[in-house]
């Protein structure tokens, strides 16, 4: 009697299975890769060369792979911190700014005491950076809790402020007097550098710290009562209010953890591969980590995998820039299409397709 339905209908799944939750990001990755390869083909590039440079080389060439590991460190750190907040539905979008402030706090020590020596210096810098990031995120928490100011906007705008603070320092008080007027600080002394763990590469101990923190994040989110409280606040704010879990505390904790991790990542970047404070300390880690957190399903273990994938895209993009003549925007286009594919894939995690024909019939 009713008009035949041509289009399939979306039906909510009662409970998404674990396998589809794991499958969705993988499918998104494959789809995004295919779309981009097609795009390169349209642009007249050789897709085989791009595929090789972008997808294979980061994993099969050891120098490339070591760079992937190097990039994994900050992405993993930041994403783990952000995911805790996102599960509590506290949306810290300002990890970029917290990363920069972390780098600045860490740099203060070698900039002010360039002659200091001792193995205590780099751990102190990492700690200072983490505290700096947490303080910067704390500004957002303060306004959110006190004035109900939207944390997305505040944290995002504070990232722009952080970039200007960095500019001010590099153009003024912290500029290297012997640096030919380049906006950068002095090169840091040897003890201000995080020790390398794989000889012949730039991979340093901060990767180990990131992995250790990922495990801690796992325990925190899956096993601890504090993590449980945050999760309740994210899933059912009214249930959290009913139980008496403080919303303000959840906001503070979420933002402080996110800021701490991002600040630590920023510190590890200046005390690691860069070795000085300069304008381009971040290549958008703070924003890329948002994608990493969601690609990893906001799960501490999933994020370990997604951060490696994201790092490989960065390195693969750099490779393709050189060897396959891709434009510099290619990586951004890839990240954008990856995020879109992921969001679409998530729709099919929550819903299944039902075709009109199979819904009715077989009347007894």
């Amino acid at each position, binding site marked *: *009697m009713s008009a035949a339905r041509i289009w399939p209908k979306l039906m909510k799944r009662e409970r998404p299975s674990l396998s589809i939750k794991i499958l969705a990001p993988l499918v998104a990755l494959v789809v995004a890769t295919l779309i981009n390869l097609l795009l390169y083909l349209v642009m007249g590039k050789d897709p085989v060369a791009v595929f090789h440079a972008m997808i294979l080389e980061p994993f099969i060439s050891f120098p490339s792979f070591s760079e992937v590991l190097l990039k994994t460190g900050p992405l993993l750190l930041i994403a783990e911190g952000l995911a805790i907040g996102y599960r509590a539905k506290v949306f810290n979008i300002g990890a970029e700014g917290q990363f920069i402030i972390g780098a600045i706090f860490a740099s203060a020590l070698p900039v002010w005491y360039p002659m200091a020596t001792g193995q205590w210096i780099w751990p102190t810098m990492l700690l200072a950076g983490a505290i700096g990031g947490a303080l910067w995120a704390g500004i957002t928490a303060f306004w959110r809790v006190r004035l109900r100011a939207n944390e997305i906007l505040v944290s995002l705008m504070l990232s722009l402020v952080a970039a200007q603070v960095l500019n001010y320092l590099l153009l003024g008080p912290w500029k290297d007097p012997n640096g030919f007027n380049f906006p950068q600080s002095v090169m840091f002394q040897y003890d201000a550098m995080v020790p390398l763990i794989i000889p012949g590469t730039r991979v340093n101990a901060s990767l180990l710290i990131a992995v250790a923190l990922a495990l801690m994040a796992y325990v925190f989110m899956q096993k601890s009562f504090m993590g*449980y409280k945050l999760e*309740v606040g994210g899933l059912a704010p009214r*249930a959290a209010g009913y*139980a008496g879990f403080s919303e303000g505390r959840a906001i503070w904790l979420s933002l402080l953890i996110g800021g701490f991790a991002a600040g630590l990542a920023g510190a590890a970047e200046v005390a690691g591969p860069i070795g000085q404070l300069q304008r381009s300390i971040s290549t958008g880690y703070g924003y890329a980590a948002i994608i990493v957190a969601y690609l990893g399903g906001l799960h501490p273990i999933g994020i370990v995998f997604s951060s490696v994938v994201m790092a490989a895209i960065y390195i693969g993009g750099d490779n393709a820039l050189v060897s396959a003549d891709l434009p510099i925007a290619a990586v951004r286009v890839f990240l954008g299409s990856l995020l879109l594919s992921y969001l679409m894939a998530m729709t099919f995690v929550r819903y299944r397709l039902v075709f009109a024909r199979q*819904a009715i019939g077989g009347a007894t």
Partner: protein
Amino acid sequence: MTAPLLSLRGISKRYGEVRANQAVDLDVAPRSIHAILGENGAGKSTLMKLIYGVETPDSGEMLWEGAPLTLASPAAARRQGIGMVFQHFSLFETLTVIENIRLVVPGRTAALIARVRELGAEFGLEVDPFAHIHELSVGERQRVEIIRCLMTDPKLLILDEPTSVLPPQSVAKLFDTLQRLRDGGVSVLFISHKLEEIRAICDRATILRAGKVTGHVDPREHDAHDLARMMIGRDMPEPPPMVPSQPGETMLELIGLTYTPDDPFGMPLKDLALSLKAGEILGIAGISGNGQAELSELISGEIRLPFDDREQVQMMGEPVGHLGPAERRKLGFSFVPEDRLGRGAVQGMSLARNSLLTAHPLGLVRHGLIPMAQANDFTRRCIADHDVRTSGVEAEAGGLSGGNLQKFIVGREMMLAPKLFFLAQPTWGVDIGAATTIRQKLVALRNQGVAILVISEEIDELFDICDRIQVVSQGRLSPSLETRKTRPEDIGRYMIGAGAPA
């Protein structure tokens, strides 16, 4: 019997493991008020969703005026002449009546207004077309919903638990409307679990139990007892025995509680006074929306008063107005909120993790970590002691029926061994069996000396279990009335704000 308007033959629907409807047969005659009677979780709502095109059946067939009927959506159902009024209204509060109607009904505004007035006069559904929804009482909102359905000239109108939101006075008016509709040629499918109502108004009744039809009867030929037996599969549970008790110390006191909510649609509370002693059950009657939500959050601590006003709420003799829910629980308070999902329990979490919500101080957390063995243990005891029907501690709270989830929440809160126990709408949407169990437990607790406060819209329930009743109306609380010396009509007068009898 005349040819049926709607026929269902062998309709089945399952959700995963749950067989919501199994081989249901149903005939709705033209010009009849047909009751669908069943406990919560019996499959009434699923059946209505199938008839209204929200869901499609797995097997079986539907006939509409003798022709096969396949519905792809509620819009298709409406085109056929099937309308539905849901338990939870779908009206925009900030818009007027006519604006809400215009959103779904095509036509010129002037013509629509005329039609609203005409339908209002014809069926006793008077409502001002230019009133904003938020100004209307629940009864008036329901009228708007019914009018909106009638605008499309349906032949069948489905009403899901329509009386559960109404005060006694409005129920009579609704019944008058339904009878006029029937006489005007519209069949009504009336979903309920209230036996007396069905006997009062329905021509036919189909009784569902666990997804299957257990009887097609004329409800006027059976007493409530028979219907209940068909509905729950055994005799009506005994009403709980009340023993006289000696009230002890005062456990809860409100002294001039005054509060203005931030929400412009909230109800400000003015100068409430109340005193509850150990070993007593005090009931708060009233039509919902008269300040119950605000009152319950002020008592639970979800809304805190400024420190200077802390004396307005006293628990176990201490001022607590400024304390949060967790701090009040430490004093021996526990609370069952009116919203089960999303407040009393977290939908997507297992029962075991839901136990942690309020029972975490009972050794379920060690060194900041959650040893799941303890939580599972606690949950297993709660499930066993309170007859929660579920697959186990791993079941998600959202998957339980309303009654079972309520038994779980009440059980969890009782296991906290409260001195002061507060329940808001404890049997809202809960089946008779579970509701009686809950009431019996409350009376048993009272006899053991627990102070119990119950907010409920069901006057019968309050008369069953309460020592005293106070009525909330327009944010004010009536004086305390002793249940034994009070008639339901007196409560009704306070409910509509008419005050004490002369």
